[in-house]
Structure formats: C-alpha cells, structure tokens
C-alpha cells in the first residue's frame, strides 16, 4: 500500500476554479480528515479520488484499484434487505459474516428489513458496513456519522476504527471534534478567491 500523492491537481467548472494546484499526501494506512466550508471543493476532490470525475490537470499517484466509499447520500438499494445492501460490494462474503457486521453497529433486528423501511440513521449504518466490507485499502467517507445520535455515533466510530485499521481513510467532516476523535492529519480546503480584473 502506497501513500496517495496529489500533485498540482486542478479542476474547474464552467471556467470557475474549484481546485487549484492542490498538492498533498494521504499517508498509507492513516486517517486524513478533509475539512473546509461549503463550496471549497471537498466533494469535487472526493469525486476525483473515486474516479467519478477527471481532474483537469495534475497527477494522482498511489491510488489503489479497489476503492470504497460512504457517500454523502446513503445510495442504498431500497427494495433489498439491509443484509443484501451491506454485502452488495462483497458478494463472496457469507451472509452470516455480513449479519455479524450489522449486529456490530446495532442492526441485528433490521438485517432482513428492506432498506426502504429503515430510518435515516439505520440506512447510514448499512452504508458504513457496506463500505467496510468492500475489499479496498482506500476508503472515502463523506460525513459518515451524519444523522446518528451520540450513542450510535460512538458505537459506529468504534466499529469503524476496529475494522479499518491499517487502511487509508479520507473522512470528510465539518466537525473539529470529530476530526480530533478520529485523529490523523487534517487537510483543510479553502474556497478559491475570485481574481480581480
């Protein structure tokens, strides 16, 4: 597993720069918290790292082929069960293994329920388990604890820390407290100031 190195990455939309000469390193096997105000390019950077958007220029090296993510929206398959959703990215995993992971985040009773019947917090936990179970060394988690109460947050955080040890994590968060709890480096993005004429 290598460090993920971003070198002078740029991205604009309709002529408006969102990322400009972004150079940073996401250390292998470590957590990096990505922070910044709305509109500073966090989602753009996440989408570039996940291969959903090409950068306009610059290079990114060390990115593994297998990726995993907790998206800002849950992006679950509503007609299918929590177990099916949680194991969606890892079809070879036995069901009982998936259920054990759901149990670890407090979803033992909801394992067979269709995702459409789950509350927001439950859906979030399913999405987190899905990301954890995917065979990937690099996980991007976009506000993973959104919608979780404090007790559930603690439970899920403990689960995440235990299950992603040794993996490279990029966690998008607005909370300084959360960043401090997660530990690791903090990458702060700032909006690009418009250039005067």
């Amino acid at each position, binding site marked *: 597993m290598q460090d993920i190195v971003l070198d002078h990455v740029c991205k604009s939309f309709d002529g408006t720069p969102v990322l400009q000469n972004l150079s940073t390193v996401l250390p292998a096997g470590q957590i990096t918290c990505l922070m910044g105000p709305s509109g500073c390019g966090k989602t753009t950077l996440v989408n570039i790292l*996940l*291969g*959903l958007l090409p950068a306009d220029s610059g290079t990114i090296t060390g990115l593994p*082929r*297998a*990726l*995993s*993510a907790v*998206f800002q*929206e849950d*992006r679950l*398959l509503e*007609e*299918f*069960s929590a177990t*099916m959703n949680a194991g*969606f*990215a890892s*079809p070879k995993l036995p069901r009982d293994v998936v259920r054990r992971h759901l149990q670890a985040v407090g979803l033992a009773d909801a394992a067979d329920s*269709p995702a459409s019947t789950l509350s927001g917090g439950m859906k979030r936990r399913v999405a987190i388990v*899905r990301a954890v179970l*995917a065979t990937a060394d690099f996980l991007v988690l976009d506000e993973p604890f959104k919608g979780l109460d404090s007790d559930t947050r603690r439970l899920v955080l403990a689960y995440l820390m235990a299950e992603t040890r040794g993996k490279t994590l990029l966690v998008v968060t607005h909370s300084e407290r959360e960043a401090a709890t997660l530990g690791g480096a903090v990458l702060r993005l700032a909006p690009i100031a418009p250039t005067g004429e």
Partner: protein
Amino acid sequence: MTASIMAPKFTKWHRLAAVGLAFCVWQLAAVLLASPLLLVSPIRVAQRLGQLLFEPGFYASVGFSLARIAAGFLLGLIAGSLLAVLASRWPLAEVLLWPYITAIKTTPVASFIILCLIWLDSANLSIFIAFLMVVPIVYANMLEGIRQTDPKLLQMGQVFGVRPLRRVLYLYLPQLRPYLLTAASVSLGLSWKAGIAAEVIGIPEGSIGERLYEAKVYLSSADLFAWTVVIIAISILFEKLFLLLLQRGYARLQRR
C-alpha cells in the same frame, strides 16, 4: 364554502355488473335485429363456444397461434430491450435506429402483413408480425427506463467495482420494473391483435386466423364471435401469466 370533488369509487363488482349489462344490451339488440347474420346473440355465441371446446382441432389451432404469437412477443421483448441498451450506450445507435423504429410504429399492420407474405412462409408470419409490433414499444419504454436510472446508484456500482451482471440485476432491473411492466402490458395485447390479423390475411393452415377466415367465408357470425372470445381469453390469460411470472421473478430477486 368550498365543494370537495371526490372521484367515485367503483369496485370489481361494479365492473362485472357493467359487463353483465353490456351482455343484456347485446342480447336485446340481437333480438330486435332478428338476424343472426347481422348480429348473433350472446346465448348463441356461448353455445357455439361450448361446441368448439369439444371439436377436434380446436386445441391444435389454439396451440398453433399461441406458440407463434408468444414466440414473436418474447423475441420482440428481448430485441427491444437489447436495442434500448445499445441506444443508451451509443447515441449514434439511437439515431441509426430511429428511421426503423418510426417506420414500424407508423406503418399500418396490414401493409407489413402483405409485404411479409412475399418474404415469409404464412405459417410463421404471425411470429414476425407480433415481433414487429412489440419491438418499438419495448424499445421506447426500456430506453426511457435506462435513462431514468438513478445516476447516484450507478456511481455507487462504479466505485465499488460491481460486476456488470450484478449491476444489471440489482441496479438496473429494479428501476426498470415499471417501464418493463408497462411495455409488456401494452405490447402483449397488440401482439395478439396483429398476430391474429396476420393469420387472417395469410391463412396459415391450422391457425385461429384460418378459423376466423372460414367463419367469414361461411358467413357464420356465431363462429366468428366464438373464436373472438377465445382470442380475447387467451390474450388475457397470457398477459396475466406473463406479468405474474415477471412479478415473481422480481420478488425472487428481492429475496436474495
């Protein structure tokens, strides 16, 4: 003061009563016309239908037409779906397909039937005509369904490296369900009507179309109506069976 407008609620019993009333109107009209050639009574049609069920060759004729029209429908369903996938991936394909799809949609069925009689054996004409009727409907609905598939779910599949078959089964198929059901429901009835029309014109031996043609030649209104009832019954049963299988397929997928 505001008046609330509520749509009247009709149950299946109301609809059955409406059908019963329609039969009464039919019977009354037949009695008043007093000419079985012009309008045969529903009672006479029911009697003739009862006789047909025990006549030799009845089930062979039903099987002949059912097999061919069902085959045409299924082939059209597959072809329409594949063309929709093609058009969704390559815009050039959509442009290239447009004149053919438009021609099939707008050309009268009778024109196709007569044209195809030149190319095809009359025994298999109904397969091709049913196929032609189904393709544009399935193509249009499935293409729209593919385009309406939630892009965020597709991105999720892409990020997790989900294999193509799993994407089709779990990302596309559930979202295509309403479009597929609509396409199947509309095209089933149409494939039957067009398929039987092809048989009446082509007169393949042993088909329902041939029986309808004979009813016309021998001026037997009772036979004509009785066979029409048979066609309607088979069409409804086939549609219900197909949609039931489709629903069961989806239910099985969801239980995985």
